[in-house]
């Protein structure tokens, strides 16, 4: 695991009236326990991974005693299907994943779930990975809620509101028999604040108070003819019930404001951005007292027509702030106003940027345009410096894309792939989701397509037979177990695909924080598991399987070359096996420090570059890209260009030397192995050697 969550786990046990301090995602996790969930599951993905990470750490001390089951779902589809428990039984359950991608994977199970309907509250916590810092395709979850009739909550981001909305979501889900989705933006998930807690509630049905009887009701099967009845129920009974609940429980918030002729309707998640913009434009105070009336929609599906009409009443102009496209809220509002013959002018995407994250600049501009000259003037004053920074810096600054960590075992594989393609000609590389997607960036620039998690091999299916060189698919162990096994490898074997699959097995789902996966040897709860990628692939009938130690670049290169050139048809699988270096260092560093303190013998290998031997052609950078391999000023008074330099962060993985060797770059690299506390004999020998060498040695 990326880090220990001991502190967070402790906060999960807080009781009535005690104050929790932490991130938004922790508040939501605590609220699940306060709502009496029977089971929790999901698949890790920023920005919601920590929900599962924390609960995994809390499993023994907290969940088990409460009788709450924690499921390590294999992927989002499995997590969505997990919620099936709430169809027949009065069990509250929650699952989490990154949206939009996770929701896409879960879509089939979600449709079935919401058609059948639930009697126990079912909640999906999605990380709305949209806007700056997002790592996935830019789509919103809203459309899923509309097509499958899911309740969609976009809460105002404060810890107390997040917690309250989770608790209400279960109530609303049970009142309407519809699954609820709570959508959490990146910054809201990582927002640190505080809230007052309530006691945790033991689930009515759980591992400590099990069901005794199964429940059979054909009406709850999403199978014809039930499906026809269920469709009618959604719109005749379930959504109306949800609307009643929203009003009765006051889930949406109204800020009165004195300027009655205008108003703003917005997604709850945008509230602080809008209130700050209003403050800067002189229309609100720092405490959120706005002069413009506002309707804050914490629930964006379903909308409540009466509530909207009530807000529109007597207003000349209303602005809708709705992030993303299509503008479902704006459209529904306009249709509603039209049907009721209202004359209120409804603004939305006509004054705000259509797509993209609603950052302050965007909202500020929209509000200034909506509010008129005085606001525009204040905005101009605030932003008069905009653009001058770019001018002052003259050149556009180089980007700093994420890259493989120092000593990462995935980097050498791409060094080898790059060398191999120089030699055998470049080929199509199907990339996948995971840290290895960084290989699509400089210096490797490897990867022609990304079609989703675990989809690399499948995405090459039509390229392989139509490409005159063998194509290569990259698959991490996370992606392999998520869906690459079936959609990728099995599919390729079934279709007799003649191509190469490189599986990067690092024993964790690393990109999201080293969560356990079936290659880790244990599940997140700590139960031992023995699942092997090699054996699994063998069992599919693949005979060409080679496992390599990625740090041995020359060996990896040899295997890649063989895979590219062998007469053998079918799938050729190369498994590059080595532990995620981040995780390894977390283990090794403290151990080394301890042994040093204890005066034990410790060898610390690190690499270096002789500055007077380096001529600065930088080939090493272009085949390596290690963060610790950097530049320094040339110590040579007659040379101007900087030279290569390995800084203190080097972990001695040896890649730079291996690449310089395998690729025959230059003789500048050396390994310097410092032997601490070597012992008398070794020290004596070393002294003798230094003495002998000393005779011959020039200064």
């Amino acid at each position, binding site marked *: 695991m990326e880090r220990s969550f001991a502190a967070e786990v402790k906060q999960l046990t807080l009781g009535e009236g005690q104050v929790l301090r932490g991130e938004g995602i922790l508040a939501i996790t605590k609220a699940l326990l306060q709502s009496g969930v029977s089971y929790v599951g999901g698949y890790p993905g920023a920005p919601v991974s920590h929900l599962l990470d924390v609960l995994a750490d809390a499993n023994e001390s907290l969940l088990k005693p409460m009788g709450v089951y924690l499921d390590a779902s294999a992927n989002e589809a499995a997590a969505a299907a997990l919620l099936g428990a709430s169809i027949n039984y009065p069990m509250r359950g929650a699952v989490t994943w990154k949206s939009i991608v996770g929701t896409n994977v879960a879509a089939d199970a979600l449709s079935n779930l919401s058609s059948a309907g639930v009697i126990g509250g079912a909640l999906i916590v999605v990380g709305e990975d949209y806007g700056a810092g997002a790592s996935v395709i830019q789509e919103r979850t809203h459309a899923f809620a509309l097509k499958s009739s899911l309740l969609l909550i976009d809460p105002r981001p404060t810890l107390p509101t997040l917690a309250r909305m989770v608790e209400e979501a279960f109530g609303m889900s049970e009142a309407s028999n519809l699954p609820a989705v709570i959508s959490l933006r990146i910054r809201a998930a990582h927002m640190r604040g505080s809230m007052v807690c309530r006691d945790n509630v033991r689930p009515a049905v759980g591992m400590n108070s099990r069901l005794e009887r199964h429940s059979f009701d054909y009406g709850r099967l999403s199978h014809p003819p039930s499906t026809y009845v269920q469709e009618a129920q959604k719109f005749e009974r379930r959504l109306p019930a949800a609307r009643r609940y929203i009003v009765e429980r006051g889930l949406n918030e109204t800020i009165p404001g004195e300027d009655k002729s205008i108003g703003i309707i917005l997604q709850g998640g945008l509230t602080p951005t809008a209130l700050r913009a209003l403050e800067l434009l002189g229309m609100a*105070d720092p*405490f959120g007292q706005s002069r413009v009336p506002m309707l804050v929609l914490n629930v964006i599906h379903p909308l409540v027509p009466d509530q909207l009409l009530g807000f529109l009443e007597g207003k000349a102009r209303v602005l809708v702030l709705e992030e993303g496209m299509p503008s479902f809220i704006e459209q529904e509002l306009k249709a509603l106003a039209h049907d009721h013959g209202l004359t209120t002018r409804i603004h939305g995407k006509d004054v705000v940027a259509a797509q993209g994250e609603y950052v302050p600049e965007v909202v500020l501009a929209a509000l200034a345009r909506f509010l008129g000259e005085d606001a525009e003037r204040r905005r101009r004053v605030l932003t008069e410096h905009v653009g001058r920074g770019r001018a002052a810096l003259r050149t556009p600054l180089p980007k700093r894309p994420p*890259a493989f960590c120092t000593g990462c075992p995935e980097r050498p594989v791409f060094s080898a792939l790059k060398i191999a393609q*120089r030699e055998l000609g470049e080929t199509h590389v199907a990339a996948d989701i995971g840290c290895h997607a*960084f290989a699509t960036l400089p210096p490797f620039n490897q990867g022609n397509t990304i079609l989703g998690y675990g989809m690399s091999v499948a995405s090459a299916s039509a390229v392989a037979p139509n490409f005159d060189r063998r194509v290569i698919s990259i698959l991490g162990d996370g992606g392999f177990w998520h869906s690459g096994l079936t959609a990728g490898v099995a599919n390729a074997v079934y279709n007799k695909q003649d191509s190469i699959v490189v599986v990067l097995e690092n024993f964790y789902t690393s990109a999201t924080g080293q969560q356990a996966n079936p290659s880790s040897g244990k599940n997140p709860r700590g139960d031992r598991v023995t699942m092997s990628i090699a054996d699994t692939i063998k069992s599919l009938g693949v005979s060409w399987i080679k496992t390599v130690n990625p740090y041995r670049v020359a060996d990896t290169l040899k295997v890649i070359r063989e895979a590219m050139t062998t007469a053998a048809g079918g799938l050729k699988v190369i498994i590059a096996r080595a532990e995620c270096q981040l995780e390894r260092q977390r283990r090794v560093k403290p151990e080394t420090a301890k042994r040093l303190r204890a005066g034990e013998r410790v060898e610390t290998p690190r690499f270096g570059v002789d500055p007077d031997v380096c001529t600065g052609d930088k080939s090493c950078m272009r085949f390596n890209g290690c963060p610790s391999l950097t530049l320094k000023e040339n110590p040579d008074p007659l040379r101007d260009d900087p030279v290569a330099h390995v800084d203190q962060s080097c972990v001695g993985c040896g890649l730079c030397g291996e690449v310089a060797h395998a690729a025959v770059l230059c003789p500048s690299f050396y390994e*310097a192995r410092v032997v601490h506390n070597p012992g008398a004999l070794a020290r004596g020998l070393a002294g003798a050697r230094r003495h002998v060498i000393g005779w011959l040695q020039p200064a």
Partner: protein
Amino acid sequence: MAARRPVSILIGALGGHGGGVLTEWIVGAAAHAGYPAQSTSIPGVAQRTGATTYYVEIFPERTEVGAEPVFSLYPTPGDVDVIVASELLEAARAVETDYASPARTTVIASTHRLFSIAEKSVPGDGTVPREVLEAGIRALGRRFIGFDALALARQHQTEVNALLLGALAASEVVPMTAADFEAAIREGGVAVDRNVRGLKAGIELVAAGEAGAPAPRRDRPWPEVRAERAAALGTRGAEFLSLAARAESEFPEALLAVLGEALARLIDYQDARHAESFLESVRRVHALDSGTRLTQIFAKRLAVWMTYEDAIRVADLKTRRGRFERIRREQGAPEDAVLVVTDYLKPDLDELYGLLPASIGGPIARWAEQRWPEGRPTIGQHVKTTSVLGFLRVWLMARLRWLRPSSLRRQREFALMSRWEEAVLTAARLDESLACEVAELATVVRGYGEVRRRLSLATRRFLDETVLPAIESDRQAARGYDRSTASIREGRRHLLADENATRLPLPSGERTSVRPAASPSLRGRGQG
């Protein structure tokens, strides 16, 4: 409207560089002082070396429960009070993206650089000049507190983020006191002493007003350096001093340092005759040089070229006492620790027969280049140069200096070198800037083995097919030499930036039946 507003702090750090901890300290200090605060972050792929930003808002007044201020999750351009950056480029990035405004923003940044991959992978120098970054920050910031926090962290046995926290505490932009910040570190409970030391050092630094002042760079006076160089040359020091004296009598002050360094290098590399022939060439160019700019550039480039890195040179550099001392220092190896150095060497046949007299090496070369047109075999080896036998192997190679003057490699290097020298002289007769550009072309010839062979070939062709014709057409058109000067500058950049010019060869000893799709220029060998 309440007068009091939240204080906003934007933090730009790099994955794994303590930005998260810094943020927690700030929020903790606010909590300790009783001020409402909120933080958030875009960790994205934190710890994966990408740029990571954190954002904190603090309300500078104690408030009752239920009457909390509204905190934004985003910084607003024009409304940012402090930008803290753990590295200079990240501070400049905040300026580029409009978060710094002259009316409001204090910029606190470490001035050390961590180069982006784009900067690192350009052959030659692709780094963004520090001055450009600092100028941008000064232009858009209300106040700039900049210091090399990395160097200071090493010096004070502390961390970069603790020093930055100290600077923030001392900047008087946030309502918390030094005591609040220290309490936050103690409550954090991680490496408390180390971090508190950093906090205090940061506070003192700003209080003393040292921060923000650009670091002075002084070049040592030549006489001082001359003595050092002479000493380093040992028995050959006398020859060096007499040559240096001759140069000093002949050339203007401005050139002495460069010429002196060059002479020392050439004698160290070969002998006094080698150094004298260098002075000969410099004389010819200087005769045509109105000032010293051209001679300066030409002398630097020629000296480096005349000391090209053949196996003998590499072996020599790898076996020097100073080298092992430097490595010990860099690795921070304690006195009682044992140091084991393993060198990754991989000479190819070209390298070895290159050492033979041209009369013998030439025919061998012709045969070998036909036998292995894709590149000659290499002798890959990992040599423990801290072991007696390993050291001997390399040391013996370094003794072969006597082979050099008649060697095939020398013949080949000097053929191209004199071509370049002629071009410089031709240009020098016409236009100074033009001549300087031609002189700079020498920097293209770099690297080892195949890389160097290809760059040499590219340079020769560029000289013959582009440089000289361009100069000639400018001369005939009598329109000045701006066009040819520009095209030569462009050409040099292109030759260096073109990755194909440093394409990778076949790895050692491996053979494959498959022919490369790409040009033969893929093939080759490095040396070592």
